[in-house]
């Protein structure tokens, strides 16, 4: 597990600084996600992890710094000035810490919506319902269903998202993110609220996604057992500053990390 396969980075940031009013939430974060790796971002509450996600996905615009996304070898995109939908289109998908499904829509519709940027139909297509549009609709419905099927949610395809059990909602959020066909998947505390058995499944799920869907994963997580077991590389944030990075075993022993989590003493 040690030493992630160095096939270049799918994402790298340098000097990311985010200032809210007078509060510096992130300062000079240099960060990297290896292509095909599972990278974890950990840190105590309020360390700026979610803020970092929000910068990456265009919800916040960092005060300083550059973010480079490389969907394929040899292709580089600057993310800093892009809108969230554009970033999703380019291939970064995310889940949210407090699940944000489209609650009053069905599970299948949730996934269909995520296919948005891969579909072409516009107003005219919708009104005229020409052959191309119908074919596209059918193809996407089928794609969505199969995706749900693959992740064990097909039986609930016509249920409202809000009626799913909690664990299934978390899973659906991941499936929905996958439907945008990302190159990089950002998971914000995917294990929050899951029990031990579910967390173990999540561990397998994340690996499965990385291997089968051929993408890179970046996750924020508090569950250390999950982080240590699943990730190739771990970054530690504390008060907006990156204090350590390396393979899980190293991080576990790093005195700075221990101090950040346990406090002085």
């Amino acid at each position, binding site marked *: 597990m040690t030493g992630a396969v160095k096939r270049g980075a799918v994402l790298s940031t340098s000097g990311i600084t985010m200032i809210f009013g007078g509060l510096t939430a992130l300062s000079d974060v240099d960060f990297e996600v290896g292509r095909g790796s599972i990278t974890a971002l950990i840190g105590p509450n309020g360390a700026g992890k979610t803020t970092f996600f929000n910068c990456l996905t265009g919800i916040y615009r960092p005060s300083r710094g550059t973010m480079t996304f490389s969907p394929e070898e040899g292709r580089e995109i600057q993310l800093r000035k892009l809108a969230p939908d554009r970033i999703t289109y380019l291939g970064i998908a995310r889940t949210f810490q407090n699940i944000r499904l489209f609650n009053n829509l069905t599970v299948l*519709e949730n996934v269909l919506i995520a296919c948005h940027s891969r579909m072409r139909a516009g107003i005219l297509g*919708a009104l005229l319902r020409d052959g191309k549009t119908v074919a596209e609709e059918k193809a996407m419905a089928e794609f969505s269903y199969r995706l749900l099927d693959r992740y064990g949610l097909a039986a*609930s395809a*016509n249920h*409202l998202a809000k009626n799913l059990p909690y664990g299934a909602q978390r899973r659906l959020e991941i499936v929905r993110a996958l439907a945008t066909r990302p190159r990089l998947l950002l998971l914000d505390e995917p294990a929050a609220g899951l029990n031990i058995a579910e967390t173990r499944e999540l561990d397998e799920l994340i690996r499965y996604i990385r291997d089968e869907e051929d993408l890179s994963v970046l996750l924020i997580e508090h569950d250390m057992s999950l982080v240590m077991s699943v990730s190739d590389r771990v970054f530690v944030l504390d008060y907006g500053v990156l204090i350590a990075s390396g393979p899980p075993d190293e991080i576990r022993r790093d005195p700075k990390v221990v101090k950040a989590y346990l406090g002085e003493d």
Partner: protein
Amino acid sequence: MTTVQTETAPPPASGSGGPSSGGPGGGVPESPGPDPAGAPEGRGGAAGHLARALAEFRAALLSAAWFSVLALPLVCFRVNAVSGGIDYLWARLPRLAALAFCATLAWRFLLRRLGFSRVRSAVAETAGPPPEGARGPGGSWLTLLDRAPAKRLLLAGAALLLLSVPFWTTPYVVTILITALIYITLGLGLNIVVGVAGLLNLGYAAFFAVGAYTFALLNQNFGMGFWICLPLGALSATLLGLLLGLPILRLSGDYLAIVTLGFAEIIRLVLVNVGFTNGPRGIRNIQPPTLFGADLNGAVKPLLVGHGLVHKDMDLNKVLVYFIILAIVALTVVCVYRLENSRLGRAWLALREDEVACQAMGINRVRTKLAAFALGSTWAGLAGVVFAAQISFINPQSFTFMLSVMVLSIVVLGGMGSIPGVMIGAAVLILLPEYLREYSDYRMLIFGLIMVLMMVFRPQGIIPSTRRVYIYRPEEHGDGGARPSTRNPDALDAGPGGAGQDGQAPAGVPGTAGGPPSPRGAR
């Protein structure tokens, strides 16, 4: 930013910290949870019932007293505008108290019922619709729950009835039906904006006005006819929607509501004050639409009346307008239905549900909002042209805030996002008052009350919108004409079938099915 939402229902006693303890205000709502007093009722017997009834009686009495005090000065001391003195109308007081008493009893009863039904519906929803379809290998997903034959028959019947109306009714009926149909068009248009995309537009009247004035002005100044002006009116309303939408759609919900309201007021004030619209006096003698230049009332009418086909006072121009607006409504229904079930429509729904998540799905927020806003305006413009053609006289007084509220009530009352709901809503709000003329004084009062009551007791509307169910159609051609069964039929077979019995998401290792196309196909 955040709404205070007291999820934990307050203890019944703490609710009334106000002037009169024990629960005046008719309202003093019980916590909308299962009523604690409801449980022992089964075995409590007569004593329990009596105590309960006494408590209700006491609450209603208190509420009646409270409302009597509250209403006393306004109801019993009427300012006499003519004499400049006060009329003392004490006789009103007991009637008011009695009304408050009964209303409180009803209100409390309904709120308790609501508490129960919420629990019940929550249970029902968890059960969810039964997993449909997935019955055989091969085939494709159809995106539409086809209309049942009975529903089709009903639709055909309704269409036939509506088409035949002018031939067996009076001109009066045709006139109010035209009004109702105009409001249905408006309701369906606003439904796109408010019901589907969740953008509260309180200035819808402005777009209606623009449609009407476009026709009126073009007709007056350049003699242009209805048929040319119909698309032009729709177009100008759409353009105005785009123009207004661009700067304001960044605003969040409530701000948007108020800006649209302000915008509508601006439009109205401009129409009142600008010279070329003839100000408050409005524009008269707008030409009715023609049918291939035929003189309907002159040449055709005697023929029809002669054969007893139409009422002798029927204005055939009105009949033509009726058919035109009927066609527009039919077209609108088809359009709205198709839009709702398209890529764009789903983006609207996503926008309504959660703006942040919506963007994270790759949906451009501004463009999507703009599309909803502009398309909604289009129908207001269409309806405006027809409105001008129907009454042949318009002035700014027809396009006040009350019109926007009326259309909004139609959408809310009928059921936001629901096409049949909007139609029922328009029928109820436009036709009922027409037939209950003697109560016309109370019309707006009742409207206001209905809006409040609907929000309290049935926020989803008369006919709530339903999500459509995607069903599996076995043995149909697959996507793109490829042979479907060659693509790992086992996977398809096992997938839905196996999971369907379980009901729960299988907890095991993900991806037991290896075959189906990867989510990453060719981009």
